[in-house]
C-alpha cells in the first residue's frame, strides 16, 4: 500500500485560498479595532494617592466626616484666617464661582481646611466663614488631625517668621477637585476666569476625569 499523495489542487482553487486569507486578515483587523474601541463598562476607581478620609469640626457646627461626602464630587482647599493676601481672595472668588455654578443648576460644596488649628478654633472659623458663600464650609480640628489631612492631600504647610515678630504660614494654594469616590481629579483653575472654571465644575459633576 502506498501513502496517498497530496492531490494536486487545480490552479483556480489555490487562487481562491489566497483571496480567502486576505479577506480573513481584513476581517480580523476590523474586529480587532472594533473591540479595542468598545466601551469597557464603568471606569475603574481612581489610582490617585492624593486625598483621604477625615473627621473635622465644621464651621457650621458639629463634626464633618468625609464619608458623608461620598456619592457627590466636592472641592477641598487649605488656608488660615490670618492670611492677608491670597486666602480671602480665593474664598471670595470661589464662593462667587459656586454661586454662579448653582445658577447653572450645579450643586457643589467646598471645604476650607485651616492650616493653623491652634488659632482657628471652630468659633473663629464660624465667624470667618460667615463672610463668604454658604457653599464653603470651614474645617478645623486638633493639630494632629489637621496634619493628617494636609499629609493625605500632599499639601505643603510651612510657618515662616515675619520681620516685626510673629509669623505667617506658607501653604499650597490649590483648590482640589475630588470626585464622588473621594478621588483627586485635578486642580480647579480659578486664575483662568470663571467661564473656564465653570466648565471644569460641570465636567467634575458629570463624572468626567481628564484623560
Amino acid at each position, binding site marked *: 500500500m502506498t501513502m496517498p499523495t497530496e492531490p494536486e489542487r487545480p490552479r483556480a482553487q489555490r487562487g481562491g485560498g489566497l483571496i480567502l486569507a486576505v479577506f480573513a486578515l481584513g476581517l480580523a483587523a476590523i474586529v480587532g479595532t472594533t473591540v479595542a474601541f468598545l466601551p469597557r463598562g464603568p471606569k475603574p476607581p481612581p489610582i490617585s494617592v492624593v486625598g483621604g478620609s477625615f473627621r473635622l469640626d465644621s464651621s457650621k457646627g458639629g463634626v464633618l466626616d468625609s464619608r458623608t461626602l461620598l456619592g457627590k464630587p466636592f472641592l477641598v482647599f487649605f488656608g488660615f484666617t490670618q492670611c492677608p493676601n491670597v486666602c480671602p481672595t480665593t474664598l471670595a472668588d470661589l464662593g462667587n464661582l459656586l454661586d454662579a455654578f448653582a445658577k447653572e443648576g450645579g450643586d457643589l460644596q467646598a471645604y476650607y481646611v485651616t492650616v493653623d488649628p491652634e488659632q482657628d478654633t471652630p468659633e473663629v472659623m464660624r465667624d470667618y466663614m*460667615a463672610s463668604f458663600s454658604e457653599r464653603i464650609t470651614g474645617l478645623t480640628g486638633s493639630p494632629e488631625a489637621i496634619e493628617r489631612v494636609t499629609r493625605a492631600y500632599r499639601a505643603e504647610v510651612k510657618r515662616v517668621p515675619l520681620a516685626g515678630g510673629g509669623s505667617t504660614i506658607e501653604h499650597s494654594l490649590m483648590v482640589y477637585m475630588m470626585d464622588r469616590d473621594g478621588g483627586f481629579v485635578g486642580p480647579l483653575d480659578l486664575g483662568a476666569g470663571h467661564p473656564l472654571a465653570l466648565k471644569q465644575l460641570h465636567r467634575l459633576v458629570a463624572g468626567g476625569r481628564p484623560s
Partner: protein
Amino acid sequence: MRLRPSRLAALALALAALSAGPLSAHDYKAGPLKIDHPWSRATPGGAKVAAGYLSVTNTGASPDRLTGASITAAGRAELHSMSTENGVMKMAPLPNGLEIAPGATLTLAPSGNHLMFLDLKQPFKKGERVAGTLTFEKAGTVPVEFVVEGLAAKGPDQGHDHDHAH
C-alpha cells in the same frame, strides 16, 4: 455683634480715623513721586490682617525707595514679597524696601509685592477709607488713604470707576 463698653470706646476711636469718602480713584504727589490709588480689601470676620496695594511712579531723575508704611487702623505694616512656587504661596519680608528707578512704576498688587497690615484694630469695610502713611528714602513720609474695596476685588475700583464691558 455685642461689644464690651471698653472695646466699644476703642472701636469708636479707631473709627474716627476712617471716613467714608467717595470711591473715586485718588492719587498723591510727593516730590517727583506720583502715588496712585492706595487700596485694600474688606476683611472677613475675625481677620486681624489685611493687605495694601498701590502704585508709585517716579517722574524724577534719581531713584527713590519705598521703605515702609503705617496705618492708623493696624498695629503695624510690613512690606512683603509674594510669589507662587509649585503651587505654594511664598511670602518674604523686604527689609531693604523696593526701589523705584527714574521713570519706573512700582506696583503693589494682590499677585505680588504688597503691604501687610497686622494687628488690625477693627475690620475693614467696603467703601471705607483707612488713613496711613508711606515712607520713602528721599521723598519722606507721605500721608495717604487706602480705599477699601470688596472682599473679592483683584484690583482697584472694581465695579466703581471703570466702564466694564459686560
